[in-house]
């Protein structure tokens, strides 16, 4: 009987970026610092005026530098219902106030908001003095600002990468990536091509083009791992309107290139085939993924495989026509 119960365990471990931020941000980063406070001896009428003037729905009550309580709209309504607007703040305030420390993580405040039905939490500093006020709105504002910063940082990186070629003046600008691929290194098979795909996406290639180049690079990479004497090099040259990939090695070379190009032809060993390779479709796949492919090889020399992908003029996002 198969067990699917562990699905929920793993999902429970899942943490979103927002949740992460709730742990990263501390309360002093999101709280309101310009406080409007009341004195216990203020009249409820003056408190009502303060609420109206400042458009707030609650305020901490401070006696000297000590937090004495908190007065909310609900307390105000209670007072109005009693018809006792002439009474003092200390008669209607809530005095057993739960506070949070300004150095606590935002998530601690979230827990309290979730457990107790309070609208705001006074924030105290190390000395226990009131330093701010925190509402759920402050938290969501703070999280939104932090998310926005994250997003902007990511955007800047993306923008810089995809505009790499624009600010550099030369007759021909290109970026070259090189990957050394070891013979028989099956456990890292695909690492180079996945990196190539990622790099192309970063540079602004469409997902489709990055994928096709990735597939071609993968087949070339596996050929270096499976068929060479000492491994080889996978080299990618990125230009504004063209991606050229080359896989080269120093042997043993291909005896019959025409045969090697035939679908289903493979010289892979039984052991390699048992790993899922050796379908004889590698070069066929490459040819269908890139615009141009050529193979130069001779027995006992090496092999050079060239793959060229032409980029449509709008591949680089935001890239204008050449000046």
């Amino acid at each position, binding site marked *: *009987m*198969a*067990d*699917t119960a*562990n*699905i929920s365990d*793993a*999902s429970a471990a*899942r943490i979103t970026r927002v949740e992460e931020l709730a742990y990263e941000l501390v309360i002093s980063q999101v709280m309101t610092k310009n406080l409007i406070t009341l004195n216990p001896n203020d009249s409820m009428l003056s408190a009502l005026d303060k609420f109206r003037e400042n458009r707030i729905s609650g305020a901490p009550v401070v006696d000297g530098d000590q937090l004495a309580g908190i007065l909310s709209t609900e307390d105000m309504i209670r007072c109005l219902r009693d018809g006792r607007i002439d009474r003092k703040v200390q008669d209607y305030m809530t005095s057993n106030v739960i506070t949070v420390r300004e150095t606590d993580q935002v998530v601690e405040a979230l827990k309290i908001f979730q457990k107790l039905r309070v609208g705001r939490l006074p924030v105290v500093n190390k000395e226990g003095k009131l330093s701010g006020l925190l509402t759920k709105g402050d938290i969501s504002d703070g999280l939104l600002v932090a998310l926005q910063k994250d997003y902007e940082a990511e955007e800047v990186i993306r923008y810089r990468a995809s505009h790499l070629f624009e600010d550099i003046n030369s007759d021909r600008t290109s970026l070259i990536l090189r990957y050394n691929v070891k013979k028989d290194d*099956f*456990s890292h*098979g*695909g*690492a180079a*091509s*996945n990196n190539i*795909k990622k790099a192309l996406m970063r540079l602004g290639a469409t*997902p489709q083009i990055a*994928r096709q180049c*990735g*597939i071609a690079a*993968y*087949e070339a990479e*596996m050929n270096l791992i499976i068929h060479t004497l000492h491994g080889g090099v996978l080299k990618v040259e990125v230009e504004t309107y063209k991606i050229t990939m080359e896989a080269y090695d120093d042997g043993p070379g291909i005896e019959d290139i025409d045969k090697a190009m035939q679908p289903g032809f493979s010289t892979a060993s039984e052991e390699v085939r048992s*790993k*899922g*390779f*050796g*379908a*004889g*479709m*590698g070069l*066929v*796949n490459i040819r*269908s993924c890139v615009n141009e492919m050529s193979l130069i090889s001779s027995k006992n020399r090496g092999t050079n495989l060239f793959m060229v992908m032409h980029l449509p003029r709008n591949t680089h996002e935001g890239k204008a026509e050449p000046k």
Partner: protein
Amino acid sequence: MNMLELAKQLDLQALTISDDLKSQQITTAYQSDLLSCVMSGGGEKSLWITLINNVNIVAVAKLLDIPVIIITENAVPEESTLERARSEGISIFLTPKGNYQIAGELWASGIKS
């Protein structure tokens, strides 16, 4: 179809679970034990059924944006393969059934392309 529901229906054992599995919708599947065939035939966002259990399946899935692999005939992969799958965000399920049977069951569940 939702992948979690599919896993329950087909009685699959989850070996690795990606963050977004809950919301993963599967509409197409592909079966092959030859990596190059998957390279040309496996579509993105599809499910891949295979008997291969070595680490290379993760690289292929990652390259093709295949989010889910079902390994058949209880061919339990090595921990290093699962480790790689976790870091690349690929979900791997295991079943004692064979390629043919699991493909048939997927078809019966409505995955018909």
